């Protein structure tokens, strides 16, 4: 079981900055994110897009912002549960919360902060009516262990980085790889597109363009797929696995069943005080919350997280007196033993 002071759901920019602000107040954080790496939308949706409205940065790429935030909060040694979705929230008798993920990891903390952006990223599933029947029986949206595809016949659908990358990786493992895309243009990195072209020319992978998967067949496990090609000619391909890799889209998901007040697909919070939700001890910051005048901007999330930490401190340390401190005055003392402070002024006499 993971125990911490503040449990943060969502490791996007606002979740990461919460670790820093909480750290200044000597509270330890642990983050849960459904994505396998921190950064949230900045990593998943637009890592290479420049952001122009982060104060102090005239321009910064989204994935650079993520690395800077990770660097800034590193000294406060946050814990991470990545690749898992927070599934349930329960309050114990002592007032603390238990959050369990879809993989059964149990987390316990007196304060929960939801910094979940637009929700947890879920795979975009193609419109094939029968697809659910074959989920985990030949149809996978995520690849955790590529070894399960060893010497198997695999079809991959999609035209982005993930479809291209897995085509390249699986060409070494699977007995047969077919990449299917509705266009003949791919939106992945140029080097990946060229590599797939190379593999295709060497007959190591098959590429079906202007084609899409329209049906799946099999008894208990997927056995073959039907693709629709130009001029509506159909082709049946015998496969063991079908991997639709159409990227991920955020959905509010299980959070919406936690008894939180939801408005406009976001969690209602008290913005006049502490960004607390209707459940005492549960806060929501960043894009996931809503209140009159809400702006879904990273910089507004940073402010919300800072204010919220002051109130989280009061819950965690009800007896302690406390006054806001400035990092320019007190420096930053990390949990890892590191210490940063303003250098002393140099005093020199004028003779």
């Amino acid at each position, binding site marked *: 079981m993971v125990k911490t002071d503040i449990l943060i759901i969502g490791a996007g920019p606002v979740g990461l900055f919460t670790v820093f602000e909480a750290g200044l107040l000597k509270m330890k954080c642990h983050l849960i994110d459904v994505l396998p790496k921190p950064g949230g939308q900045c990593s998943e949706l*637009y890592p290479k897009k420049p952001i122009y409205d982060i104060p102090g940065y005239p321009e910064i790429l989204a994935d650079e912002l993520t690395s800077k935030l990770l660097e800034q909060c590193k000294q406060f040694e946050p814990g991470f549960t990545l690749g898992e979705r927070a599934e349930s929230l329960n309050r114990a008798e002592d007032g603390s919360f238990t959050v369990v993920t879809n993989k059964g990891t149990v987390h316990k903390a007196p304060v929960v902060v939801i910094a979940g952006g637009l929700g947890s990223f879920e795979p975009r599933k193609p419109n094939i009516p029968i697809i659910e029947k074959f989920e985990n029986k030949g149809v996978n949206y995520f690849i955790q262990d590529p070894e399960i595809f060893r010497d198997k016949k695999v079809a991959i659908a999609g035209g982005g980085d993930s479809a291209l990358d897995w085509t390249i990786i699986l060409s070494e493992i699977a007995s047969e790889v077919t990449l299917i895309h*509705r*266009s003949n243009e791919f*939106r992945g990195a140029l080097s990946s597109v060229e590599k797939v072209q190379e593999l295709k020319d060497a007959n190591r992978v098959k590429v079906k363009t202007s084609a899409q998967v329209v049906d799946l067949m099999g008894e208990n496990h997927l056995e073959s797929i039907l693709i629709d090609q130009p001029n509506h000619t159909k082709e049946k391909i015998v496969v063991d696995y079908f991997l639709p890799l159409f990227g991920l889209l955020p959905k509010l998901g299980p959070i919406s069943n936690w008894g939180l007040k939801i408005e406009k*697909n*976001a969690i209602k919070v008290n913005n006049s005080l502490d960004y607390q939700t209707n459940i005492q001890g549960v806060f929501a910051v960043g894009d996931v919350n809503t209140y009159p005048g809400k702006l879904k901007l990273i910089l507004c999330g940073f402010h919300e997280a800072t204010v919220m930490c002051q109130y989280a401190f009061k819950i965690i340390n009800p007896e302690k007196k406390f006054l806001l401190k400035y990092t320019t005055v007190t420096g930053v003392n990390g949990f890892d033993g590191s210490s940063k402070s303003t250098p002393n002024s140099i005093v020199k006499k004028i003779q």
Partner: protein
Amino acid sequence: MDNRTVKIYITDRSGLSHAIEAPTDMSMNLMEVIRSYELEDEGTVGICGGMSMCASCQCYIDSSHELKIPSQDEKLMLSEAFNIRESSRLSCQIFISHHLDGLRLTIAPAE
């Protein structure tokens, strides 16, 4: 009608039609117009913020207005979108201008 607005007819996902006034002087795109009139639930249109990185703002153009041809990014996103038709466009890539007056469109189903 204020000459800085155009009339646009939008059919939402539930099939309801709306005749709305869209400003031409606020550098808004159609996705933002749909959101500013709250024609769909917040968080279900324009998820990526208008970067052609998702297809949540996909719409079908129902009138014969001549629109700027889709950029490479838009084309590639549409090539991965679901519920696609000949008339599919990403509404975030269509900027409100005078020649859109009378435009008719339908918001594509949510994925």
